[in-house]
């Protein structure tokens, strides 16, 4: 008979073993669904792997897709470290996209336009994230609910904009006007979609890691998240730390939107993000809120997304399997996290 027993300490190798175990459990449990769709699970996963990471094109597509998820994963990781429950990365991403698109549409040299788009996008994302943070700090309103519901408000506000006053006069669809061509983010490898924003995402991860683990602000964020009472007693202004974490988190989510506008779409439409903000939650959990872990976690989910399309074409398994894998990965990781606090013991059955 099996039972759970409290653990007094967590071995260091768990940091790697838990996400890998969760991924393995996800792939094994989802192979049942592939079999139901009358395909060979191994063959399907093989197609997924080779198409997403097997050649230069697949690899660059996966990285391009991972970039916004690295940003949203970092956004969620920073917020959750402070126990600011930011479920609103999706809306903050959209706000960042709108602001950067508006700035990018102003004619100016690329070297000016790109930083200006980044600043505007980050500021817009931060502004959206400040709403639930201020409501919590000032009025003790639950931040899970407010940050989540803001996603819908931002999404509908965006729709209203691009269906009405901000609709591209040249296009028939509800799409915003495009940014100036000078503001297009440079492509790093010719013939692919790998753009400068991907590099920015890969640099952002170690930068945020440094901020969290090596600065006094990061220290305050960690301590506030783990024990706000002790932080306050220790002289940390907990409310300010929560607001700082919200600004940082919203800014990172906003940058995810900037990258999509400046590097991939060059304009804003309502399907700009296929749920990158929500994927950020899965990624941050898989990474155990470690900013460095966000990169492999985001690449894994991006590979699943790009690979799912090729797999669907090759084996006839619906492309939605990619979404199922993402959901299963989160569930598996949440179960796996149980093992940081408990161990399984085998006892003699009665």
């Amino acid at each position, binding site marked *: *008979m099996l*039972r759970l*027993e*409290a653990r*007094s*300490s967590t071995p260091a190798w768990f940091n790697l073993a838990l996400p890998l175990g969760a991924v393995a459990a996800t792939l094994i449990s989802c192979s049942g669904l592939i079999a139901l769709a009358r395909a060979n699970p191994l063959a399907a996963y093989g197609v997924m792997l080779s198409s997403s990471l097997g050649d230069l094109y697949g690899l660059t597509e996966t990285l391009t897709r991972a970039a916004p998820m690295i940003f949203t994963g970092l956004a969620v990781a920073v917020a959750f470290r402070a126990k600011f429950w930011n479920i609103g990365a999706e809306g903050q991403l959209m706000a960042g996209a709108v602001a950067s698109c508006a700035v990018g549409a102003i004619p100016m040299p690329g070297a000016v336009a790109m930083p200006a788009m980044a600043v505007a996008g980050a500021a817009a994302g931060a502004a959206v994230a400040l709403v639930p943070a201020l409501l919590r700090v000032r009025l003790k309103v639950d931040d899970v609910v407010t940050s989540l519901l803001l996603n819908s408000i931002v999404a509908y506000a965006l729709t209203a904009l691009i269906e009405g006053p901000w609709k591209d006069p040249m296009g028939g669809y509800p799409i915003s006007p495009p940014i100036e061509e000078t503001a297009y983010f440079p492509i790093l490898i010719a013939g692919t979609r790998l753009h400068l924003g991907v590099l920015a995402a890969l640099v952002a991860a170690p930068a945020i890691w440094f901020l969290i683990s*090596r*600065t*006094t*602000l*990061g*220290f*305050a964020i*960690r*301590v506030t998240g*783990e*024990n706000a*009472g*002790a*932080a*306050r*007693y*220790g*002289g*940390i202004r907990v409310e300010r730390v929560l607001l700082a974490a919200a600004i940082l988190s919203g800014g990172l989510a906003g940058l995810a939107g900037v990258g999509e506008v400046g590097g991939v779409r060059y304009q804003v439409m309502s399907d700009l993000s296929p749920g990158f903000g929500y994927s950020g939650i899965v990624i941050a959990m898989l990474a155990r809120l470690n900013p460095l872990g966000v990169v492999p976690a985001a690449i894994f989910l991006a590979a699943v997304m790009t690979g799912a399309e090729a797999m669907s074409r090759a084996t006839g398994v619906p492309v939605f399997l990619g979404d199922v894998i993402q959901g299963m990965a989160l569930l598996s990781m949440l179960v796996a996290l149980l093992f940081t606090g408990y161990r399984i*013991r085998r*006892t*003699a*059955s*009665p």
Partner: protein
Amino acid sequence: MPQPSPLIEMRGICKRFGAVDANRNVDLAVAPGEILGLLGENGAGKTTLMNILFGAYAPDAGEILVEGRPLRIARSGDALAAGIGMVHQHFHLAARLSVLENLLVGLPGKGGRLDRPGGLARLAEIGARYGLRLEPDRPVSALSIGEQQRLEILKALFRGARLLILDEPTAVLAPGEVEGLFEALRAMAAQGLGIVFISHKLNEVRALTHRCVVLRHGRVVGQVDDPAATSSAEMAQLMCGREIVPPLRPPAAPGGPVLELAGVATSAHAGMRLRDVSISVRAGEIVGVAGVSGNGQRALADVVSGMLTPDAGTLTIAGTRIQRFSPRAVQAQGLGRIPEDRMTTGLVAGLPLADSMVLPRIGTPAFSRAGLLDRAAILAFVEEQIAAFDIRCPGPMARAGSLSGGNLQKALLARELAFNPRVLIAAQPTRGLDIGAARFVHDKLLELRAKGCGLLVIGEDLEELLILCDRIAVIYEGRIAGVLEAAEATIARLGLLMSGAGGHA
């Protein structure tokens, strides 16, 4: 007392956690009608042993016999079914439910509903047998701590417990409530129940138990057959493996005032407001604040610690009047702070010990520069303090929550004492500590006094305050009811002031 066949017998129990032997080959037996004291320092393995008996842990080796029959514990319900009940230090009650509902939760009902008439009858029967009474329809949220504990005991009895384990039951009780608990326990033993009583307070162990077993480093190191006739010092020596004598307090040589509260008043804080509180602490003396818990100690500690801004009155530290109250402001004047609750306000259990030890001064040049942590300086500081205070832990990066209470308190002392405070406020500095660890804290406080630091010690244990303090102020309903010099302070006089009866002291 005579030894009938044991109710419960544990044989050769072994349990390891990683590299630590929590229990090594422990034998323990409890006879019907026996109150057994289980003694040992923090980390000696008492709680592990009782958790094994209760079924929360599986032993690595050894067996448990209930009335001679081997007990197989596969889940914690099995121990309950075998008649073993446990009252934990922290209660497990549903605050919104009534007394009766808490008792009936988890029991088979009648036709899918709670068996209310059956429950009432059983409650009345148990109440009559052991003198444990509670109104069945009162909500748990309206019960005092002592009554909640009584409910926990009733819960165990309700489920037919014949052996009751109590883990430090008196730690949460006011002095008056302790005697009531003891009477109930004696009545239960007289009816043939077995009781295991875990406590650090040796005078209580001597007053209550029939026999004591002493654990040290996970092993049984001794037994006391007649606790009432054994001195606390002898028991302490068994527990610690060395002699523990109360520290001596040399005559005070006080200097000028270093901490002055004048006419401090606050709004209600933790259930009590301060009214016109004036206290003065001079350099080189220890001033105690005695009182029944909940009479304003929390507000007093929070004002001095910079956590609470008073509505009226002044706080002056080392000659500087505090204008804007904040932890940093009082720290900047050389005030050291030992909080009442180590785990919730002192330390961050989930992070490395090092983080907790530098937390209050992380922004100072000692540990950071221009917003960047000075990791080398932090690690060097923490390692130095771990060595200086003999803090038992795997290292600076060990999770703070994995340390024992005594070692956590050492860490808190270390983080304040390292900065040579001119004044120290310590709230309940030895709560929950075993004798050895408490003695260490006492020595450190007296050492500070000898160095010319002024100390304000808030405590509930009068014997402790009498050992440490040059003067004792008594707080009652948010006011200072009186101040006694060490020479004139006795437990009786303090007790009178604490009860609000001695306004003329």
